[in-house]
């Protein structure tokens, strides 16, 4: 049938576009230097990192229909893994009798994803007993619990957080160089988005899409949905933890603010603004939100008064966020 053929052509064209997009993003530090605006690289790094976090939330929220209002918790925990390991690395103090300190990015990143995933598994296992508004509220409550735990955790800075004086190191690369660190983050982001792209088209992704559309239908074809929802929630938490670990390195600082509920809200805005349930939507949402924030903040200190209505209008009139807007412009219907 015709749709299959055009589908293949569209996917080839899409891959071409994605390749061009990645090449353009990779060239960004050079362009920033040429333009005499080296701060652009740092801003782009922030966007790329938050895009990973937003894409992770999108797996649960956009594809699985699990509206988690506590994703900043996993993001912050990832950041704290870097901060705590760095603290022990510098001081040489053991942690629970083990000498765990390290400043190696190849160790801290996987560990951050793992620890965040573990926390997401424990809290997700409880939260997923509920659904709908209850699920939104309980994820928010858990995240606030974790937030206040870290506020009270004086051993690791409490309210003030932890300073990571030097970025974690990588063999052969100088992560202190802004462009190098940007490329590291970009590589991980491309990898994470590729993984998400495969995931949502796999058998697992098909079940997840079914969960979003009708739990009743899934039961009627013999699928117990709970394990799939939990797996999606954990993967989603791992991605957020990875992003948090990168952000701790980028900002060279972690604090409980990373897991404040407003951070969860910002991640949700990125997903919804970009287009929930679309692959690249969260990246676009992260870029637009961060750019708007920084531009408006330069104009006025009351930038939030401008940003709020702007977001409402964009979401109301684009039907499906920026992805919806792109669809309207192209006149097509494939996101």
């Amino acid at each position, binding site marked *: 049938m015709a749709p299959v053929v055009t589908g293949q052509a569209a996917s080839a064209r899409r891959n071409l576009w994605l390749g061009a997009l990645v090449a353009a993003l990779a060239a960004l530090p050079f362009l920033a230097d040429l333009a005499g605006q080296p701060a652009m690289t740092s801003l782009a790094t922030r966007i790329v990192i938050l895009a990973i976090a937003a894409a992770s939330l999108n797996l649960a929220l956009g594809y699985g229909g699990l509206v988690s209002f506590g994703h900043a918790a996993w993001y912050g925990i990832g950041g704290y893994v870097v901060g705590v390991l760095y603290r022990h690395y510098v001081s040489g103090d053991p942690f629970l009798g083990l000498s765990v300190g390290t400043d190696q990015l190849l160790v801290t990143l996987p560990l951050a994803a793992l620890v965040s995933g573990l926390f997401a598994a424990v809290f997700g296992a409880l939260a997923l007993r509920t659904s709908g508004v209850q699920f939104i509220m309980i994820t928010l409550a858990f995240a606030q619990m974790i937030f206040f735990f870290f506020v009270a955790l004086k051993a690791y800075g409490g309210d003030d957080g932890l300073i990571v004086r030097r970025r974690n190191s990588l063999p052969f690369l100088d992560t202190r160089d802004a462009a190098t660190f940007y490329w590291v983050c970009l590589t991980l982001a491309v990898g994470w988005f590729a993984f998400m792209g495969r995931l949502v*088209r796999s058998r697992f992704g*098909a*079940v997840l*899409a079914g969960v979003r559309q009708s739990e009743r239908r899934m*039961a009627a074809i013999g699928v117990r949905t709970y394990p799939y929802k939990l797996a999606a929630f954990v993967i989603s938490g791992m991605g957020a933890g990875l992003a948090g670990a990168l952000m701790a390195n980028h900002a060279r600082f972690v604090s409980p603010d990373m897991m404040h509920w407003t951070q969860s809200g910002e991640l949700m805005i990125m997903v919804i603004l970009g287009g929930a349930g679309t692959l690249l939507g969260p990246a676009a949402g992260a870029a637009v939100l961060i750019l708007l924030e920084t531009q408006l903040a330069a104009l006025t200190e009351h930038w939030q008064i401008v940003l709020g209505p702007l977001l409402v209008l964009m979401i109301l009139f684009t039907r499906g966020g920026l992805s919806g807007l792109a669809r309207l412009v192209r006149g097509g219907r494939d996101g």
Partner: protein
Amino acid sequence: MAEPSGGDPVLRVERLFKRFGGVNATDDLSLDLRRGEIHALIGPNGAGKTTFIGQLMGEIEPDSGRILFEGRDIAALSTPARVRAGLARTFQITQLLGEETALGNVALAVQARQGHSFRFWARAGADESLRAPACDHLAAAGLAARAQVRVHEMSHGEHKQLELAVALASQPHVLLLDEPMAGLGASESRDMVEALKRMKGGLSILLVEHDMNAVFALADRVSVLVYGRIIASGTPAEIQADAQVRAAYLGEGDA
């Protein structure tokens, strides 16, 4: 008329009760479904037919009574476990994945039948072991030409056909059809009857239906449900002749 193979019920319901507030939705309901037969369950609106199917599928818990599926009491089984054991249903108010294509809906049911779905990398859409059986089930339900159409762009009649295809994809031994003809046009109804006729014998079917032409064309046996109670049970000819049924249901005022 094809006589059902006697004895050996594949599904046996014993003295089922379910009350909602003051209403007896299911009132001492006992029923056998024999292997390979089509057993029609008819009755006026509100007789408790859909509630009964809900109890068979484990979506609604009965107050008392037993449901034996292939000789085993299935009270402890969840809905998904019952489906995996070989029970499947269609919904009167269709429950389909609206954003997916017809093929996608059926392929997901095929996938569920094949075991767990913790496969994160290979594209499900390109998997021939899902696509081929899904196409067969679509064809069996008369939807072969509509495989790539999205559900929310399909007609009501096609939704009914797709419900059937999805149910078939879980390869049930027993199929519970909840008003498959409701809302269908005359020619769509005929297609549905033909589709069900083709399945006859291979499957045991409990057919809840209002359309008497369809019931009498398909059923080996008919039971009549009124206020949660079975008031009569027998061959189509016996039911048509039953005075009580005619009074209660077939709309003949004096009996």
